[in-house]
């Protein structure tokens, strides 16, 4: 059984190491899918439906095909089928330039019969709403019901009960690089550069689509510009790129437009929850009754967590999804959790106030039913409260003086992220001393490339930059799963680690006989091999590998589950300033304390925490997919009206990457969970009026303050 060893023996693990691909990224050399150019390459574009709900009766591509420079056009929907949301793909073209492709899109003629639509969740549940699915009466999925304990007995025991409705909007991923592919055929071999979170998943999908053996399809993702859960397969656009390339007999680049990215490339479902919860006089959460729903678009699910984190013995929940005429949900950074956490942490604060109890104390009492997580969470409460200055919060919410009022709040989260089987990797040592680590995972910007180098370098006694990491390519045939669920590090690094151990062992077996010792007597450090019992007996790495002659060491690894752990806890604290004249909420500071298992690269781990916080903050204060009920269209499918946080909105972020043992865990998702709840609670602490609906925009703040003024 392998182990990461003790922290004090680690030279590299846990240090702050700049990412290996960093120089390429800051100089513009790094090639993303969008940047791939191939000889004779054409530009693809998709015609998305301008109407929200219609039966397509005919598609005519001939005018588009006749435009000079157009090399291929294909339908993406059969006549007789329906488009069921704005932007749904109708046809695609490939042309010599992007401008010609744009012109060709305008020349695609199609006939349709418009159908009634509904894009508002509440309206979709009314009696006379258009019915979008035969098997979803009232446009509602069959509710999932969960019952534990005795809810009535729980409420009977409660000293205080809070009843509230919380709402969170649909959020879109807004990856800076849109979905897209470059597809090139060579005979019946297909090569696809893909902006994807799943190189091997994309290969499988395309192989099945074209009925090819998997080894005839190569998928490459050297660098990719964000995915956040939305990029797990080629999708309609990737298959279209490959279809167009085959038809045109030329490589095709097809990147989704920013507008279509908002409309069709996935989103986080909305959430509405009506919840009633009770606590005993001594602060025990005792009963929780929830009815909730959300929309994941035309057919997507809309699950969310609730109750969340805190222990409740008596629970009844009923949750369902509502269909509307909008693009489907996809996994988005901790699916279901940020919306659930916002509801739960708002509720916790409301209950604590009813009980006359400090909100942090109330959380400590109900912290977490899982012992390991509970222990870590209690530490996190202490660290975070100290860092934000919890004692400074308003004892009476809204008690601050002046126009600009400050407040402090907190929120919690939990996540799996332990990884799993299914990664193959090789560590190869060449006679010239060079070392390669190869596996089929992909780096979404998380830093896994650098983490792999750190782990191999640590094991072999080299520097991270001595290791050539080859990932993001299916050609070596070393499969790895998609990067989602914060599973990458837990899935990949145990295999890399055991491969590196095996490769080192092989090298020791070459050198040991020459020294007349057993391989176990050797060690590797600082670019040398040496004898454990006599550190003066050394051989340089390069000299040692020189003994391989014509041989190469190339070892695989295995997934050792003892090297990784899941089920992490996170806690965040926020301080905000609310301008009571303009309604603007300005975050002042956010403290994120995150259980990180064993931190491999502190620099990039903190970046991930920062990134999670910014996305959570943006969700709390800015982001909202706005649909127009009249036209059935999204009003803000761009990057100015769909607001994502920028430099002016982001406060000081204090990321505390907590080492909680010697096992790796993924933290791409957990730090985005607690932020919205923490901010909402801070706003309440500042102004004494609770905003139960995200995003907390100035109009909501001003309306709430006006209501309070009337009361």
């Amino acid at each position, binding site marked *: 059984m392998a182990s990461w060893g003790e922290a004090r023996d680690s030279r590299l693990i846990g240090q*702050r190491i*700049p*990412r290996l*691909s*960093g*120089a390429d*990224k*800051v*100089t*513009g*050399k*790094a*090639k*993303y899918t*969008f*940047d791939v*150019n191939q000889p004779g390459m054409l530009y693809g574009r998709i015609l998305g439906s301008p109407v929200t709900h219609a039966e397509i009766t005919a598609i005519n591509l001939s005018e588009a095909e006749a435009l*000079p*420079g157009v090399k291929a056009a294909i339908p993406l929907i059969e006549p007789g089928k329906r488009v069921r949301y704005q932007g749904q793909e109708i046809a695609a073209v490939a042309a010599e*330039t*992007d*401008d010609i492709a744009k012109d060709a899109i305008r020349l695609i003629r199609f006939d349709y019969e418009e159908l009634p639509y509904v894009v508002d969740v509440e309206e979709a549940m009314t009696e006379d709403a258009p019915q979008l699915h035969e098997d979803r009466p009232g446009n509602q999925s069959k509710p999932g019901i969960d019952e534990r304990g005795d809810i009535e007995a729980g409420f009977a025991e409660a000293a205080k009960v809070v009843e509230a409705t919380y709402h969170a909007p649909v959020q879109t991923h*807004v*990856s*800076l*690089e849109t979905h897209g592919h470059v597809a090139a055929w060579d005979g019946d071999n297909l090569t696809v550069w893909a902006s994807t979170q799943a190189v091997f998943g994309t290969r499988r999908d395309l192989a099945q689509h074209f009925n090819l053996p998997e080894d005839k399809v190569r998928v490459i993702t050297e*660098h*990719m*510009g*964000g995915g*956040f859960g939305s990029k797990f397969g080629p999708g309609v656009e990737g298959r279209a790129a490959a279809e167009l390339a085959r038809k045109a007999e030329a490589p095709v680049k097809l*990147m989704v*437009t*920013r507008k279509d990215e908002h409309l069709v490339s996935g989103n986080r479902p909305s959430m509405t929850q009506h919840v009633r919860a009770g606590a005993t006089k001594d602060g025990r959460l005792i009963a929780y009754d929830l009815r909730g729903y959300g929309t994941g678009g035309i057919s997507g699910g809309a699950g969310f967590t609730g109750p969340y984190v805190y222990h409740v013995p008596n629970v009844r929940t009923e949750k369902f999804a509502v269909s509307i005429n909008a693009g489907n949900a996809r996994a988005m950074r901790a699916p279901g959790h940020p919306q659930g956490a916002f509801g739960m942490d708002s509720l916790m604060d409301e209950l604590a106030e009813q009980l006359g109890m400090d909100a942090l104390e109330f959380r400590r009492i109900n912290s977490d039913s899982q012992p390991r997580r509970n222990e870590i969470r209690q530490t996190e409460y202490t660290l975070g409260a100290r860092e934000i200055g919890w004692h400074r919060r308003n004892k009476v919410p809204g008690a601050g003086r002046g126009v600009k009022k400050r407040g402090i709040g907190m929120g919690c989260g939990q996540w799996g992220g332990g990884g799993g089987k299914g990664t193959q990797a090789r560590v190869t040592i060449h006679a010239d001393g060079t070392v390669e680590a190869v596996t089929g995972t992909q780096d*979404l*910007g*998380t*830093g896994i490339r650098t983490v792999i180098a750190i782990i191999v370098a640590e094991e072999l006694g080299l520097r991270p930059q001595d290791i050539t990491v080859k990932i993001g390519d299916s050609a070596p045939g070393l499969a790895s799963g998609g990067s989602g669920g914060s599973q990458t590090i837990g899935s990949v690094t145990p295999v890399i680690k055991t491969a590196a151990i095996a490769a080192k062992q092989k090298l020791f077996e070459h050198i040991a006989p020459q020294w007349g010792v057993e391989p176990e007597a050797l060690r590797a450090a600082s670019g040398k091999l040496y004898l454990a019992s006599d550190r003066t007996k050394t051989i340089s790495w390069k000299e040692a590998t020189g003994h391989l002659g014509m041989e190469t060491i190339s070892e695989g690894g295995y997934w050792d589950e003892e090297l990784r752990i899941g089920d992490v806890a996170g806690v965040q604290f926020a301080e905000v300033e609310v301008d009571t004249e303009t309604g603007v909420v300005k975050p002042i500071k956010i403290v994120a304390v995150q259980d990180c298992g064993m931190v491999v690269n502190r*620099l*990039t781990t*903190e*970046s*991930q925490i*920062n*990134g999670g*916080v*910014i*996305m959570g903050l943006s969700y709390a204060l800015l982001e909202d997919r706005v649909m127009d009920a009249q036209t059935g269209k999204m009003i803000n499918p*761009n*990057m*100015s009206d769909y607001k*994502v*946080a*920028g*430099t*002016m909105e*982001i*406060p*000081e*972020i204090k990321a505390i990457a907590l080492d909680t043992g010697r096992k790796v865990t993924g933290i791409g998702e957990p730090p985005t969970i607690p932020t919205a709840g923490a901010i909402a609670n801070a706003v309440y602490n500042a102004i004494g009026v609770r905003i139960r609906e995200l995003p907390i925009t100035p109009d909501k703040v001003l309306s709430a303050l006006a209501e309070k003024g009337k009361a």
Partner: protein
Amino acid sequence: MPSKVHVQTTINGEEVEFLCEPRQSLLEVLRDVLYLTGSKEGCNNGNCGACSVILDGRLVNSCLVLGAEIEGKSVETVEGLAEPDKLHPIQDAFLENAALQCGICTPGFIVAAKALLDKNPNPTEHEIRYWLAGNLCRCTGYDKIVRAVQDAAQIMSSEVSA
């Protein structure tokens, strides 16, 4: 098809000539005609700043400038910042501060930061934030980006005074 426009210009200090469609944007010219793909397309309508370049000393979104407009002008892109064996101090500072993750917005931020420091070598934190408000990032949290620009400003001004 409209006839192409012949353009003579200077890009990253080198004289360049190219043919482009009258309607092609500078971003398209850089990426699809000259294969300088360091300037990125994030939105193609001036919202995200990933395509930032410096045109005759002014920071612009190259997706909102026509290729034909740069006749006789001078353009700086991210590719022109580093020397052959040495990164620009802003690039170094981005690396040191881990001010990037996926990195696709990074060239835009770096070019924008260069334009700022060219004009104002010692910006306040507020000035940096205000200046970079036209660049969007979905990964890194901006905090580290602001720190990187502060560090770069300090290093560059000490280099000048040394």
